[in-house]
């Protein structure tokens, strides 16, 4: 009895010491103990830009799928590794741009839509996904062969589930922020993807054009980071005023970053 009362006290103490208030928004207390930030739509800003690579992009190498004839058959020509996928003008795909500092100190409910990873042609699609903590992750196997989905987190639970063909999607979630969790399929050693988990909704994964867009940013000072699996992380400071739309580009320099 005494112990459970102590627990309640510790929770109460920590909530009081971390008031989730921030500039540009008001905090309303809903029924129960959840604190939900209310940000006025007209007061928020937007940050857009490109992620680029300075210099020639290393070319992908053909993946040898000989250990799995079904995977070989799925591709007319061997697919290329996806470590670095660069577009025209050196734009970089599969980079994650996110707020690393300055996020309003409040809790963000995860979106109800799941993020989906599909295993097709013995590759994970997409190669990089980002989601919010406790948001549902769905893993689909569209191949006529078994896969095992094995995330290797350092700050979340490590699990490993088999998924033979024809079985329903797996549903999992990650509780803590982590950028980014490498995911393996042990059966097919070449398969790899990354899952980034954020406790806030301010992140964007670059597509084929290398562009990103962070929307609904409350005005404030931020550190914005760009993560890439091969080139590491770049950080820039930016100030967003109410209703402002800013552009910000990130340029990775392969040699400098890779020697680190």
């Amino acid at each position, binding site marked *: 009895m005494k112990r459970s009362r102590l*627990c309640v006290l510790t929770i109460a*103490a920590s909530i009081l010491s971390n008031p*989730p208030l921030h500039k540009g928004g008001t905090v309303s207390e809903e029924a129960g103990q959840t604190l939900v930030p209310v940000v006025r739509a007209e007061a928020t800003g937007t940050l857009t830009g490109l992620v680029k690579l300075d210099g020639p992009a290393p070319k992908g190498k053909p993946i040898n799928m000989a250990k799995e004839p079904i995977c070989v058959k799925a591709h007319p020509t061997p697919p290329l590794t996806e470590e670095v996928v660069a577009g025209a003008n050196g734009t970089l795909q599969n980079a994650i741009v996110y707020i690393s500092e300055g996020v309003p100190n409040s809790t963000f409910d995860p979106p109800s839509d799941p993020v989906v990873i599909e295993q097709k042609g013995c590759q994970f699609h997409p190669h990089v996904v980002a989601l919010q903590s406790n948001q549902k992750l769905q893993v689909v196997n569209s191949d006529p062969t078994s896969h095992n989905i094995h995330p290797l987190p350092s700050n979340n639970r*490590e699990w490993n*589930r*088999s998924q*033979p063909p024809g079985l329903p999607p797996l549903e999992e979630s990650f509780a803590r922020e982590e950028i980014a969790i490498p995911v393996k399929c*042990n059966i097919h050693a070449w398969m790899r993807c990354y899952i980034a988990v954020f406790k806030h909704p301010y992140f964007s994964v670059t597509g084929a054009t290398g562009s990103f867009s962070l929307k609904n940013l409350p005005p404030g000072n931020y550190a914005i980071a760009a993560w890439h699996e091969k080139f590491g992380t770049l950080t820039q400071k930016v100030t967003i005023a109410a209703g402002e739309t800013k552009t910000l580009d990130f340029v990775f320099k392969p040699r400098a970053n890779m020697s680190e």
Partner: protein
Amino acid sequence: MWTERSIEHEKASRARVGRLRPQAFRLPVLAILAPFLPATLPSAVCFAQQTRIGNVTGSLKRGKELYRRYCVGCHGVLGNGQGENAPYLDPRPRDFTAGVFKCRSTDTGHIPTDMDLYETLGRGLHASAMPSWFPLTRQQRIDLIAYVKTFSPRFHEEKPEPVVPVPPEPPASPESLNRGLEIFKKMECAKCHGLSGRGDGPSASTLTDSKDRPIVPYDFTTGERFKCGQTNQDLYRIFMTGLDGTPMPSYLKDLKPDQAWDLVHYLRTLQMNYENSANNGAVKTSPARQPGRSIRNALRAVSGSK
């Protein structure tokens, strides 16, 4: 051998162990620290648990002394698996700081129960440098478990659940072996373990553990004990929970209990040397205690009927 004389006792005490109780002595410290922790932590901290098996409670102080005497050489002072003997061992000693363990009764991704750790300690890990610590007293082994749990914060933040249920085993029959073979094919166990269970599947040579070190799949034909026990119930648990930290995944969502038992029966037929290895070792097993026996008879019936 401990498994022989104590297994019934262990089963009984496993049934006796109720919900574990909060750890009293941690709370005052946490109450002081709590205001400085992120808001999400304290609620998790309330899961902090005492190590208790049956009516024996583990002592951290004694556990630390025992750890420093018996475990530190391989697992290291920090419990990170980097003791001074570690470079000479394959597989490498467990890194306790990650809170990831092979032998569990809980689903993949979850911490093991105290009883899981206790059984691992008493059993040792076959085909590794980890011996059985059964020579220590029951109290000493529980003290050690209490101390080993302090290396990972997961044991304070998470509960060892859900536990994967192991329903009673149906009898082995020629039919169940045939169904087991179909499941062996459908689950594509042969990708790593090979068609005859030799551990020579097409993916075997590419496997790595969670620390990216090469690792080999179990070779059923050696008939050696599994790392996580040697009963049919242990085998059921091994592939349903998965061996976390290794490439062996959990099949809990893919197999129904009946199918899992069929697979257990089929897998035993791959252990061609099972009886021999049991007799050559220190273990004296009575015929009734040889899990492979009834299955082998069923297998003879299958091959006889063809």
